[in-house]
C-alpha cells in the first residue's frame, strides 16, 4: 500500500471538473485508489463519491492506493493536486 498526503491549492477547491480529472486519471490504473479527508474515505474512480468530499482550498487529502501499479497511481493523482488542477 502507498500513501501520500497532498493539499488542495486551487482556490475553487475540488469542484466537479477537478473531481472528473481525478476519476479519469485513477481509472487508468488497476490498483484500488482511495482519497481520504478527515477520516472520510471515497473511491477515487467514483465521481459521485468524490462529489461528496468537502475538499475546499487548503484541505489536506490523503491518497491511498493498493495494487500492482500503486506507486504510479499515487504519484499521478498527487500531481493533479500539486498543479492545482491547472486552475492557478
Amino acid at each position, binding site marked *: 500500500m502507498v500513501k501520500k498526503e497532498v493539499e488542495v491549492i486551487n*482556490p475553487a*477547491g475540488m*469542484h*466537479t*471538473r477537478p*473531481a*472528473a480529472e481525478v*476519476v*479519469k486519471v485513477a481509472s487508468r490504473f488497476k490498483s484500488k485508489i482511495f482519497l481520504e479527508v478527515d477520516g472520510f474515505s471515497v*473511491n477515487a*474512480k*467514483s*465521481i*459521485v*463519491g468524490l*462529489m*461528496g468530499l*468537502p475538499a*475546499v*482550498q487548503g484541505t489536506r487529502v490523503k491518497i491511498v492506493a493498493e495494487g500492482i501499479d500503486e506507486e504510479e497511481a499515487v504519484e499521478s493523482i498527487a500531481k493533479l493536486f500539486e498543479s492545482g488542477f491547472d486552475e492557478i
Partner: protein
Amino acid sequence: MSRIKKNKGELVLNGIPSSVGYAFGKAFVIKKSTFNSKRNGLQRTPPEELQRYLNTIDEYENQIENYLVIVEKEKNPAVSILDSVRLILRDPILKDEIKEKIEEGYSAENAVELVFNKYKNTILNIKNKLFRERAYELDQIKNQIIEILQTKKLFATVPEKSIIVANSLSPDQVVFFKNKQIAGIITEVGGITTHSSILARSFGIPEVIGIGNATEIVSTGDDVIIDGYKGVIVVNPSKRTLREFELKVKQESDFKKSLGKLINLPTQTKDGKSLQLQVNLNTKEEFENPIIYHSDGLGLVRTEHLIPILGNKNLNFESFEELQFEIYNEIAVKMYPKTVIFRAFDIGADKFPSFFNFSETNPMLGFRGIRLLLGKPEFFKAQIRAFLKASVHGNVKIMLPMITTLQEIKESLKLVDECKRELNEKGLEFNQELEFGVMIETPAAALIVDSISKYVDFISIGTNDLTQYTVVADRDNNFVSKYFEPFHPAVLRLMKFIIDKAKKRGVKVGICGELASHPSATAMLIGLNFDSISVSPTNFLQVKKWISEIEYEKARKKVAKVLKMETNLDVRKYLEID
C-alpha cells in the same frame, strides 16, 4: 374527480434571476415522473429490470455524445459539464450499487432513486454551500434517468419558442432544449451556480429559478413572460402587461443595437492586452442601468446611500444588517458570476450621517472612512456580516476605505474573523475564502503599500482622494480648485509606485475614479498596467471603445516619458488634455 379550474387571470410570481433576458412564449411543463415507490416484485424479473437500466444508461450516454458533437464546435462550458454527466453515468461504484439493489428486487426506478439519494445526502452534509449545489446536479441526472426509463422519449415534441417549466433541469436537458430553440426556462429549485444555470447563461437563454410549485401553477399552453433581469414571471399576462413587456423587449433590443459589436468582445487593447473594465455603482438607481450586465463586474459598489435609511426608519443595527444583506445579496445574485466589490461605508467628511452627531472643524482630515468604522465596531461588524452572508455565491469581495495605517487593516481583519466565527456558530453560510481589499487613496497608504500587500488580496486606487490628499487641495473649493490636479507628477509617480510594489507581491491593482474619462488619460492607465479599471455606467462604453483603440506597448512608453516630466502642464500638453 373534476379538476379545479384555474383562474385565467394574470399571475405574477417572484423567483431568482439566473440568466438575464426577456422571453415570452407558451409554457411546456415537465411534470416529475411518479412511479410506485414500493418494490416492483413480480412485474419483471431482476435481470429484466437490470437490462432496462443498462439500456437507459446507454441511451442517455448516446444523447450526451450527440450533444457533445454539437457543443464542441462552439467553445462552451457545456463541454466539461456534459463530460461530468457522462462520468456520473459511467461511475462504476454507482452502477454496481444500483445493480445490487435491482438484484435485491427493486425496480430500476427505485434502485436509481435509492442509490442517487444516498450520494445526494452525503453531499447535503457538506458545510460549503457551493459544494452542496452539486446535490441538485445529481438530482437532475437522476430525474432524467427515471424520465427515460418511464417514457423512453425525450420531449421530442416540444415546440420552438416554448418556455420550459420544470422542477429542475439536468445540464444535458438544457443543451437539448437549446437545440429545440426554446425561449426561456423556469424551474422550481436550483441555484445560480449549478451547471444548468451556467449553461443557460452561456446560451443566452433567459432563466428564472426558485418559482416554487411552478409545474403545478403553470399548465402546458399557458402564455408566460420571463423577466430574467428581475427574476419575475407572469403567467397569462393581461393585454396591458403584454404591451408593457413588448416595449421593454424593444428597449432591450434597441439598447443592444446601440452598443454595437464591441459590447460582446472581451475587454482588451488593440494589441491584445486583456484587462477588466468594471462599473462603479453609487446608488440603487444606477443598478437599473442594463450596461452593468455587459461589464466585467462591479469594481466599486458604494454603500453610503444606505445610511439615511438607518436614520429614517430608526432601525437598530440588527434589522439594519438584515436590510443591508437583502440589498447586497440582490446585487450579488443579479451580477453572478461577475465580481462585485462592496466598499464598507465611507462616511465622515462631506458625507456625515446625522445620527452620529459629530461636528469637526476639518472633517476631510477627521473622523472618516475606516477610522469611523473602527470607532463604531458594532456598526461596522453589522455591515461585515451582511457582506459575508451575501458572499455565499462566491462572487463578492469587500474593500475598506481611507486606510492610512497598517494597524487599521489588522484590526479590521480581526473584526472580519470575529464575524466569520459568529456566523459559523450560528450555522450561517458565507464564502470562507472571501477576498479582502483596501482603497489606496492617501499618500500614507501609498507609501506603505508593500506592507499592506502582505495582508490583502487586492487594492484599488481612488484617484479623487489620492489627488486631494497629495496636492492638498479641495476640488469643491473654488479658491483652490485649480490646484486639484490628478496630472500632477506627484500623483502619477505615486500611482506608479503603488502598482509596482503591489504587483511585486502578487496583489491585483484596480483604479476607480474619474481619471479614465479622457482617451489619453485612459491610455496612461493602460500603460501603467492596471489589472482593472472601474468607471461610471455612463462612461463605460466610451472607455471600452478607447481601450480597444489603445496599443499597450505604445502606452507603456508614453507613461515612461510622462513619469519623467516635471510639471502638470508638461503632462497635459504631452497627453493633449485641456
